[in-house]
């Protein structure tokens, strides 16, 4: 827990509930604007483009038939290079060429319209789901804490109070257990409610829902404990003697995470070294015939050669690096006892006080992390539309590895929600800034994992 103690009134938690409601409304507004509003308009454009493509394709088929007819007339006439059949043949060639060009352009327009439609609808849906999660955390955890009995003030205890341990991890583990029990039914029921051909399994769904609520209450309890603060526990035995236990624990957790991502890389490498991909073909390690017969199209084949397809992955890379820097700045500000506002008027307005500066840096980190998730899902929707689905070998390893990474980002964002709330209420300073530092370790690790994932899955 953090190194300084704070009096946290229950009313303060109601603020979390209010923020949660605002976020929920923002999510629905985003869905309404992007998915329903712009999405519908884009869907109309897509339908028009599809009709135009069908018409162009039909015109090309007719032009082909006329070409073959004119060609056979010309061949039967002895293949002269002048005269009536020759003129008809030349006109048919020209008509076919122009029909093919129109068909190709219409096809590109149809793909563009489809991808544009997917972009806007996915944007709205992703924002709505993210906001539901964000608001769920704020509303449930805030409400749970607001109805807790008030505890006596910490003033008289000073900073020498003993750490009492916490039941929150057990609550959270129980919540995850129940959630996992009902997870498969949760997925089936969600698919059924989304209109897919599945039968809803309410029992398992409810089990997962109860597990989620217990998980959030466990997290809420943890929030409450961390908000009030308690002295930092220090290791008294080797090898971490004299170091904060939380920091040691975080590093041990991170090395286990390293193994998780190493297993994804091993699987990918194992499959990739055997596949006949475009890269392998270009490098001469497999033949054209093998490629035609067993060729594998990877996500990177679909992404790396065009600015627009590579852009989301590249923006995400920059977003994670910038977010790593903003969290460093938040920690730096928390530790800086001589902090002063910038001389620059705009910066002074954006970062007026030390407390608000920390909060705003954390908000920036949250925004950049959310951008990462949004762009990732938009990119996925495009890849799925292009045929890279999870039931293909190349698709499964791509979605599992990048999905696991995305999940880590998302979990980090949920933790960030609390940190923003804490930064805005009791605030961070040189005494309790370790919370930002230890969370920062996790966030930088997620960035580090992306440093390996991006070249391996997007560029190679």
């Amino acid at each position, binding site marked *: 827990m953090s190194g300084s103690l704070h009096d946290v009134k229950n009313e303060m938690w109601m603020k979390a509930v209010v923020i949660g409601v605002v976020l929920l409304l923002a999510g629905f507004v985003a869905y309404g604007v992007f998915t329903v509003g712009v999405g519908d308009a884009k869907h109309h454009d897509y339908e028009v483009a599809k009709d135009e493509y069908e018409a162009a394709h039909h015109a090309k088929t007719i032009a082909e038939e006329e070409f073959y007819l004119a060609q056979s007339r010309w061949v039967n006439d002895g293949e002269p290079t002048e005269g009536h059949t020759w003129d008809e043949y030349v006109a048919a060639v020209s008509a076919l060429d122009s029909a093919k060009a129109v068909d190709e352009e219409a096809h590109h327009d149809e793909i563009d319209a489809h991808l544009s439609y997917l972009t806007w609808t996915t944007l709205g849906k992703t924002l709505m789901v993210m906001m539901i999660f964000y608001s769920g955390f704020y509303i449930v955890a805030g409400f749970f804490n607001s109805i807790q009995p008030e505890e006596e003030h910490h003033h008289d205890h000073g900073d020498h109070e003993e750490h009492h341990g916490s039941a929150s991890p057990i609550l959270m583990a129980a919540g995850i257990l129940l959630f996992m029990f009902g997870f498969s039914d949760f997925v089936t029921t969600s698919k059924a409610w989304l209109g897919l051909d599945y039968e809803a399994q309410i029992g398992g769904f409810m089990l997962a829902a109860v597990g989620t609520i217990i998980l959030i209450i466990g997290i809420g309890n943890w929030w409450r404990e961390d908000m009030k603060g308690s002295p930092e526990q220090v290791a008294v035995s080797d*090898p*971490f003697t*004299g*170091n904060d236990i939380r*920091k*040691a624990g975080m*590093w*041990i957790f*991170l*090395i286990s995470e*390293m*193994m998780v991502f*190493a*297993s994804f*890389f*091993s*699987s*990918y*490498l*194992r499959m990739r*070294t*055997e596949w006949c991909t475009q*890269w392998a073909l*270009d*490098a001469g390690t497999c033949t054209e015939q093998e490629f035609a017969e067993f060729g594998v199209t990877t996500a990177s084949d679909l992404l*790396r*050669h065009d*600015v627009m397809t*590579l852009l989301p992955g*590249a923006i995400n*890379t*920059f977003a994670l*690096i*910038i977010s*790593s*820097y903003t969290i*460093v*700045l938040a*920690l*730096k500000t928390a*530790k*800086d006892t001589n902090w002063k506002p910038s001389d620059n008027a705009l910066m002074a307005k954006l970062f007026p006080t030390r407390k608000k500066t920390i909060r705003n840096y954390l908000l920036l980190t949250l925004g950049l992390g959310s951008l990462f998730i949004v762009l990732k899902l938009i990119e996925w929707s495009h890849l799925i539309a292009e045929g890279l689905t999870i039931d293909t070998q190349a698709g499964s390893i791509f979605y599992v590895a990048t999905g696991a990474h995305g999940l880590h980002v998302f979990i980090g964002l949920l933790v960030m929600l609390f940190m923003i709330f804490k930064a805005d209420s009791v605030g961070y300073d040189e005494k309790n800034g370790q919370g930002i*530092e230890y969370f*920062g*370790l996790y966030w*930088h*690790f997620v*960035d*580090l994992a992306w*440093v*390996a994932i*991006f*070249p391996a899955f997007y*560029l*190679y």
Partner: protein
Amino acid sequence: MGEHKYTGPIAGIFQKLADVFKTDVYMVNFVILMIFTLFEVAAVFFTTIPGTDIEITRTAVWSILIGVGIIKGYGIAAFFMHLKGDPSIFTRTALFPVVFVALMLWGIGLSNPDSILGLPAWCSPVNDYSFVTN
């Protein structure tokens, strides 16, 4: 944070750059990470070096991807994760799984494409199921 002066062959370069530009090492690290990411993307995106006919070979792309990955990894771990400056036990903890990761990448990632069928006899299971009864 920020007041610590970094030393050493690589961290010292970051510190010198920070001193030259009158900023801190975190800012220098951030700019280096951004520049190297651009470099990484450009290496794959362009087939020739822009403005020339010099082809960017597969070996060059591989070298750039691995080299840039190492530099970026170092920058994040050393400065953003404070391994440089923290007690060495944290660096040793972070490096602890490296040998297992390498074994996993070699043992699974780069293993014989025949998989278990290609294993030598001495480590193949005995496929004698005669003791199994229905």
